[in-house]
């Protein structure tokens, strides 16, 4: 017990010093940041008035040194609610939805102001917003449309490059879907609410969300973000052509371009859809449920015949590649080395891809060129596979010969041993 007593004094001294130290630390730390008394109360309040220090510290504005007062006005240095939330200090209180774009734009559309933070940030967002469906409807009195804070979040706003940001490419579709997939919310607006569900089934969603390919399109890629609006029937193929340049080039020169334009049909979307864009299959050239050509063309006419020809040719190449693959696999499992031919199969597959892309030119002669090139390569590889099997059989024959010789020696030895010991 005496020990405790003696050490108690030391314990108290340590406690005192550490408390002082912590205080000094707090003072030092808080000195660097701007005083923000708002959070002292508001962090203890509940929604919708609650904003904790933890939440706000995630916000990029806070990290750049801005405070609550930067948007809401008021005096952040005072602890007295009368003073800090006084209109004399410029306090705005809760910003009305209609005012939000203007408020954000007051900094974000000011190039000379934004320059001090990030000179390469765009400053045309507000202008774009005014051209968007959201902006126009807001101006017409619709308060349900999206404003800046609906997409970007508020008080914990992160830069778009942050994967946790609501406007990071991997999260954009979810953010848009908050309204656009909510049938109740969208009542009174004349657009469908199945886009998100359709997009989820699409190949672009697979690429972005499952494979993590950040170059894959999400809602804003085709619709724009601040100037969000559907591309328009006569312009949608321009949007697709940003990535799918080859197909677009061919389509532009094709017969279908003018034909669709005349009918006011939206280019690429006619065959491929807009949101539920699935991986194209050869069945699209067919006559079954996935057939696209036969939606317009009549059975038996010139185009139907051309379509049938295309389908046959593409199918033929596909089969040729598969049988070459099979032959090579058989050779490999028998122990033959065919890695070079396997590599050449990639070239054949490239030809098949090119042939499928060339379909967008709607010219059977061009498609045929690619098919012929591919068939040649696939035939060569099939030959290699067959030759490998012939070589394998030759090896086994050679083995047989040497086994016979070995057998003869074994018999001879047996006889010889018998002879000298008999």
């Amino acid at each position: 017990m005496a020990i405790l007593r003696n050490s108690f004094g030391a314990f108290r001294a340590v406690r005192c010093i550490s408390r002082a130290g912590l205080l000094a630390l707090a003072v030092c730390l808080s000195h660097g940041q701007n005083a923000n008394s708002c959070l002292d109360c508001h962090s203890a309040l509940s929604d919708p008035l609650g904003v904790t220090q933890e939440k706000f510290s995630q916000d990029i504005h806070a990290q750049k040194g801005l405070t609550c007062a930067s948007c809401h006005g008021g005096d952040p240095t005072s602890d007295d609610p009368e003073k800090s939330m006084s209109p004399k200090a410029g306090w705005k209180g809760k910003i009305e939805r209609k005012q939000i774009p203007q408020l954000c734009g007051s900094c974000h559309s000011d190039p000379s102001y934004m320059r001090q933070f990030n000179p390469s940030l765009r400053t045309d967002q507000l202008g774009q917003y005014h051209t968007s469906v959201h902006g126009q409807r807001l101006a017409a009195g619709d308060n349900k449309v999206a404003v800046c804070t609906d997409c970007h979040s508020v008080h914990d706003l992160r830069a778009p490059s942050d994967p946790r940001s609501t406007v990071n490419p991997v999260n954009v579709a979810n953010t848009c879907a908050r309204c656009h997939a909510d049938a109740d919310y969208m009542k009174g607006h004349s657009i469908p609410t199945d886009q998100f569900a359709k997009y989820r089934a699409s190949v672009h969603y697979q690429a972005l969300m499952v494979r993590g390919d950040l170059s894959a399109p999400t809602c804003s890629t085709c619709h724009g973000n601040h100037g969000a609006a559907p591309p328009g029937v006569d312009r949608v193929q321009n949007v697709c052509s940003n990535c799918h340049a080859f197909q677009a080039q061919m389509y532009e020169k094709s017969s279908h371009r003018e034909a669709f334009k005349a009918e006011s049909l939206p280019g690429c979307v006619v065959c491929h859809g807009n949101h539920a864009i699935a991986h194209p299959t050869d069945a699209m050239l067919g006559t079954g449920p996935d057939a696209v050509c036969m939606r317009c063309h009549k059975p038996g006419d010139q185009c139907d015949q051309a379509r049938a020809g295309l389908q046959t040719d593409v199918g033929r190449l596909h089969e040729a590649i598969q049988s070459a693959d099979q032959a090579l696999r058989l050779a490999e499992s028998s122990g033959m080395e065919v890695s070079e031919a396997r590599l050449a199969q990639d070239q054949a597959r490239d030809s098949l891809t090119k042939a499928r892309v060339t379909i967008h030119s709607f010219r059977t002669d061009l498609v045929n060129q690619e098919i012929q090139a591919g068939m040649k390569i696939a035939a060569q590889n099939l030959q290699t596979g067959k030759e490998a099997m012939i070589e394998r059989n030759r090896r086994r024959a050679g083995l047989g010969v040497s086994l016979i010789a070995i057998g003869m020696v074994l018999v001879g030895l047996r006889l010889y041993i018998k002879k000298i010991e008999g």
Partner: protein
Amino acid sequence: MTDSRLSPPGGTRRRIVEIFFGGGLLASFASFLYPVLRYLIPPAVPDLGGDEIVAAKVAELKPNSAKIFRFGSRPGLLVRNADGTYRALSATCTHLSCTVQYRSDLRQIWCACHNGIYDLNGRNVSGPPPRPLEVFDVHLRGDEIVVNRKREA
């Protein structure tokens, strides 16, 4: 005890043994030596394609054009610049592995699949590709253009 009626007389017996033993030995040695001797002869194709390969001959490429060549197990792109110098890179696009091509109009490397663009240093400058193309060493040997993998550090 061997019954002399059943076993052949000594001479024939001896011949049989000789044939099997001697003949078998000869045949088996031949079947071992033949592959070994064939093995010792170097094959016609000397290069292994792994580290170094002759991608083309000097006269083959005009300035501002390119050619695909096989390098190890992947395709490579040999570019002859407008000023006559050569550049060799991997031709496998870093996005979804399509084979890239040289665009003499853009003086850049283009991937047809999703419009990806690389500069002549292999850097991915636009479009989906997430990483640059691997660059190889090129040098001339006589009238051959030889491409090497870059030396391992």
